[in-house]
């Protein structure tokens, strides 16, 4: 199903593109950085755990903002270049190529999150102490992976239509809210919670907060519960994305829409 060599090559290719093409710096670094800095600014008087909550939320937002822009655009870029067919005629599964690129984008998101922590510490004077460092690193890795997989789901739609970007830009902000990254889920309307519960980033953010903020467990499931649900929902989205790629590639081959841009 997944081709490790194609993933590695796609990751490398995406990293080269990042360094040689300045356009990626805006959605990958500058936009999420501004967004998270604004979040910190809004929460600057909150103090204590709430401020730490905002820092973590800002980090997750940075990772998500980067993923949604770069990963979903991954196939759009191939459409624009006319390279989508050149990839699809090779034995490498397209999903592996997109996943490799998403991994690089998530890595960038990690750098982004680190930058948020540094800004929080030095510009806003927020003292950050992680109570469970090992748990934090594991939760961070799981969250990054979950965002990559979510980016892959969105990327799949580009196979079938060039109009996907407009749709994904609409999706960017609801996930900021629904994931509970910045606002606790409990303050959201009850009807919205099922949507929150199926987003892997919700559980990833929860695991990150539990491992960092003393006594925090807003959903009463503990660190392992949150981590387990991150893995479970990520696995579900991985299956969904692979199925989507199979289905949408098939549709594009029937409709002849691979080359349209």
């Amino acid at each position, binding site marked *: 199903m997944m081709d490790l060599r194609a993933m*590695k090559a796609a990751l490398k*290719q995406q990293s080269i593109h990042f360094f040689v*093409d300045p356009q990626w710096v805006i959605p990958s670094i500058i936009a999420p950085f501004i967004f998270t800095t604004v979040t910190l600014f809004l929460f600057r008087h909150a103090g204590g755990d709430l401020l730490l909550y905002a820092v973590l939320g800002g980090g997750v937002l940075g990772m998500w903002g980067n993923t949604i822009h770069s990963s979903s655009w991954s196939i759009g870029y191939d459409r624009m270049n006319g390279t989508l*067919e050149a990839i699809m005629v090779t034995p*490498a599964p397209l999903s592996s190529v997109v996943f490799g690129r998403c991994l690089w984008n998530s890595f960038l998101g990690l750098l982004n999150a680190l930058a948020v922590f540094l800004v929080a510490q030095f510009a806003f004077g927020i003292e950050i102490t992680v109570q469970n460092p090992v748990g934090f690193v594991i939760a961070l890795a799981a969250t990054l992976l979950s965002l990559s997989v979510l980016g892959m789901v969105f990327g799949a739609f580009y196979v079938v239509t060039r109009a996907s970007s407009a749709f994904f830009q609409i999706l960017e902000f609801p996930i900021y809210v629904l994931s509970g990254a910045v606002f606790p889920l409990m303050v959201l309307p009850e009807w919205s919670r099922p949507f929150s519960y199926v987003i892997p980033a919700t559980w990833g953010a929860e695991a990150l907060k539990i491992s960092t903020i003393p006594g925090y467990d807003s959903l009463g499931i503990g660190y392992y519960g949150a981590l387990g649900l991150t893995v479970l929902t990520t696995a579900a989205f991985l299956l969904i994305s692979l199925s989507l790629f199979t289905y949408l590639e098939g549709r594009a081959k029937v409709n*002849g829409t691979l080359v349209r841009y």
Partner: protein
Amino acid sequence: MNGGEKVIEVKDLTKIYPAAARLFGDGGREKLAVDRVSFNVHRGEIFGLLGPNGAGKTTTIKMLTTLLIPTSGSATVLGLDVTKDPIGLRPRINLVSGGERGLYFRLTGRQNLEFFSDMYRVPRDVKKKKIEDLLELVGLTEAADVRVEEYSRGMKQRLHLARGLVNDPEVLFLDEPTLGLDPEISRETRALIRRLSEKGMTILLTTHYMFEADELCDRLAIISEGRIRAMGSPYSMKEAVRNDSIIEIEARELGEAQRKELVDLPGVSAVSMEFLEGRQLARIVVDDAPSLIPTIAALLENRKVISIRVDQPTLEDAYIKMVNGK
């Protein structure tokens, strides 16, 4: 060549593009792009699909390279069904398209080849050497580490060809390989294609350049409006118009109306018209030139005729007769 192993077998292949789905407005009608096309290609052969734009050449090649799913009919390449076994087939074939697109412009030529080598799982121990050899083959060694966006049109096309060879394909599909290239680069590209064929590679190419088909192809099929109109060697195609003559007329006021009048004349089987700067060139395929010249001259007497001459038919005339003939 016809007696060799069949590498490509196409039978009644048809492609209908469904009407596009639109949120607002009419998505248009479904379009018949390829209509019950059948042909075989033998090992080591260069087979051409020759036809005008929109004839169905590219759609056919895309079905054979697993990029499109046929609506009906069957096609096998190297004994593998293109619809049922695309995964088994892809490592053994490759596709090169003409035109500017299809490469990563921000990457260097070498980085493009490395990426596609990985997509084909070219063994790591031979990858580096293979890429060096390909760069040398297409004359891009010096420019290997230059970004593709700085390449000329010809250099891009040569890189396309190198990309198409990274997996040592048994069958290479070339879609308009010399499209938009200057004559010198086109000649070099054709020479390279011929060298690949001499090494035993089976090649299926599409083109709308008559001389290219004539020069390269062992056999070709003339395709128009999705259907094969004629098939055979370039020689046999020319033979089909051997008993015809060509009346070539250069004039200053010829248009579509005159072309239609000429086509309707008894004894005329096809007319092609080329519009040059301030003048037009009509090539009229006829069965008996001497008897028709007075009739044609009378028909065009107010059209500022510059010259009338009789010529021998070429492959292009055979093509015009088959595609546009009565």
